[in-house]
């Protein structure tokens, strides 16, 4: 980083709010060439925003810190290829071609994987087979062993987070391992579209064509995102034909059956069905348990079977949710040093499992408490001082203090115009009673659970 720019950043950090600085100044990269300072923004939007809001300030600061040596400041779009290698201590280094270059012969497979956009974690060995996915898995293994000849194209469809990407990439990884010269590209359809747009903009369509038409296997994820993008569909149509005619493998995935993908040209939809179309269904309970156990072993998490069943029973829709819950359990367990068990999982995943999307308000608390003690809400707000009313009122006030952000005067006011000191007294009284009277403690816990779950 240019030392002038470093000084500018230090000053701007003090002058701007942290949010402003981290949003607009932090992503800029600088390079100085004699009297010119070039500032690179990651995109046009950021560049234009910076010019509109901070150009004058930046110019003044550069002028001050360079004693007038910087005569020209350019605001550009792009990135400097610096610093990546210095980040080698990141636990999970960047994996693209622009990432740290590993040139040892043993890493050749790693380089080919990176060039193909494949993740080494997606393998057949780590894919858990169940009734819901066994045909898709078997077809993928067949293709990995006989690319371009077994089934072409392979079209995998199913809901989100069920393993389509895993299977596609497992095929890619296997082909790369079995064939030293095979060239593969895995892309998300959205990436295909944006690559094409960039190539058109920079007049580099020949490069684009040779990248996508010169491979032995093209794996395109979520083709439903081609919907409505006519130019991209046109280009993909020709890519498809070029690969198909030369016997190269094509694997596609989508969230639905080819004929049901709306917004796609008929000629594409029909081609998608030329080979083999396989579905992946949501996994059954046993498969979800097996997936959790497999991922737990991959992440080095000790997951008892009853906990795996508990999580799998609660999270049914997709594998990503299971993974999120598992990672959460692993993080909590490693932080607390407590082994994962059923009770631990219940507590750790409480907020994930029970969507806490209800806003707790004083009014809501009053309604729930009144209902619980079988009295009227108006009783809570009244001047009545009988035990059957005062106790619920005190509990409701204590709950309002604990669960809402209202000030104590606001809470007092909402309970029939009482003083803030009454709220303090009520909260103290309830706290005291909860230690001496287990029935009140039970009531309080029940109400807390009702209001927060």
């Amino acid at each position: 980083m240019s030392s002038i720019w470093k000084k500018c950043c230090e000053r701007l950090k003090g002058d701007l709010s942290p949010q402003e600085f981290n949003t607009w100044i932090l992503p800029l990269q600088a390079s100085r060439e004699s009297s010119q300072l070039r500032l690179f923004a990651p995109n046009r939007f950021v560049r234009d925003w910076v010019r509109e809001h901070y150009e004058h300030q930046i110019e003044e600061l550069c002028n001050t810190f360079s004693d007038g040596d910087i005569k020209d400041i350019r605001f550009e779009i792009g990135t400097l290829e610096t610093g990546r290698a210095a980040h080698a201590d990141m636990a999970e280094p960047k994996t693209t071609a622009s990432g740290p270059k590993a040139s040892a012969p043993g890493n050749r497979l790693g380089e080919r994987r990176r060039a193909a956009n494949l993740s080494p974690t997606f393998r057949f060995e780590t894919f858990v087979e169940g009734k819901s996915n066994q045909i898709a898995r078997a077809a993928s293994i067949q293709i990995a062993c006989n690319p371009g000849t077994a089934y072409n194209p392979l079209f995998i469809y199913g809901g989100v987070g069920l393993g389509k990407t895993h299977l596609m990439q497992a095929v890619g990884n296997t082909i790369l391992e079995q064939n030293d010269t095979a060239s593969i590209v895995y892309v998300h359809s959205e990436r295909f579209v944006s690559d094409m747009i960039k190539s058109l903009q920079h007049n580099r369509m020949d490069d684009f064509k040779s990248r996508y038409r010169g491979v032995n296997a093209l794996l395109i994820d979520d083709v439903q995102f081609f919907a409505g993008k006519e130019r991209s569909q046109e280009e993909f149509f020709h890519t498809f034909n070029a690969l198909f005619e030369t016997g190269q493998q094509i694997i596609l995935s989508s969230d639905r059956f080819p004929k049901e993908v709306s917004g796609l040209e008929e000629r594409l939809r029909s081609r998608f069905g030329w080979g083999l179309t396989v579905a992946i269904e949501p996994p059954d309970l046993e498969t979800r348990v097996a997936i959790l156990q497999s991922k737990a072993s991959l992440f080095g998490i000790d997951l008892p079977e009853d906990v795996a069943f508990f999580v799998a029973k609660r999270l049914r829709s997709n594998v990503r949710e299971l993974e999120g819950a598992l990672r959460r359990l692993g993080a909590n367990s490693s932080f607390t040093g407590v082994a994962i068990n059923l009770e631990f999982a219940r507590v750790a995943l409480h907020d994930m499992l029970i969507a806490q999307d209800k806003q707790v308000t004083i009014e809501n608390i009053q309604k729930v408490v009144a209902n619980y003690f079988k009295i009227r809400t108006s009783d809570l707000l009244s001047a009545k001082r009988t035990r059957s009313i005062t106790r619920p009122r005190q509990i409701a006030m204590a709950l309002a203090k604990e669960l809402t952000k209202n000030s104590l005067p606001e809470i007092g006011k909402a309970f029939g115009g009482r003083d803030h000191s009454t709220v303090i007294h009520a909260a103290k009284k309830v706290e005291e009673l909860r230690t001496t009277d287990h029935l009140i403690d039970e009531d309080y816990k029940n109400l807390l659970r009702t209001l927060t779950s």
Partner: protein
Amino acid sequence: MQQLGLALRLPQPQTLANFIPGRNAEPLAALRQWIAGAGAPYLALHGEPGCGKTHLLQAACAQLQARARSLVYLSLAQAGLAPAVCEGLEVLDAVALDDVQEIAGQAPWEQTLFALFNRLQEHGGRLLIAATRPPATIGFQLADLQSRLCSGPSFLLQPLNDLGLDDLLEQGAQARGFALDVAARRYLLSRCPRDPASLLRLLDEIDAVSLAQGRIPTVPFLSALLGGCRA
């Protein structure tokens, strides 16, 4: 004689050191791991407004910047933003997205975030998000985005209880160069809005007035300043 204070206020840095953990030791530990580049490359924090999400995202940015990482912080609640602001961010080492719930239901934004998530994954970049609700209940229309945002650990940030708010007042006053004794803090907590942002604004006001009047912020001073009781 009244002391005239200069209208200068240095923004209070939001760091991990001055974050009051309260009941949030676990999310804090997870965030430290994320900053260190350990564990999952994607982390979500959720909690109601005022529970410290923005503070933690800013603190994470400061830590990563100190480690010479390239990164960006984006609050999706900021006026004037368009999805184009996310283009090319995957080349950065880390992206911190705040107020993610704001774009739920907006197809162009959801698709942009979905693409950004995929690209960051391809590039090995790290993603930190914050929202008022866990990703599974934010209400995204694009199932692909929702499922991806559910793939990492999501931690609930609990709002500060009275003990935490008391720490906040004590440390906040210290950071502003004055002291608030226990009685003064108790006085404020029993009479003023108890969300951290309001309390910090109140500290700014106390700071300015006590300096101007040359008075120590005791309970009588606070009582006079707040006009007895402030709801």
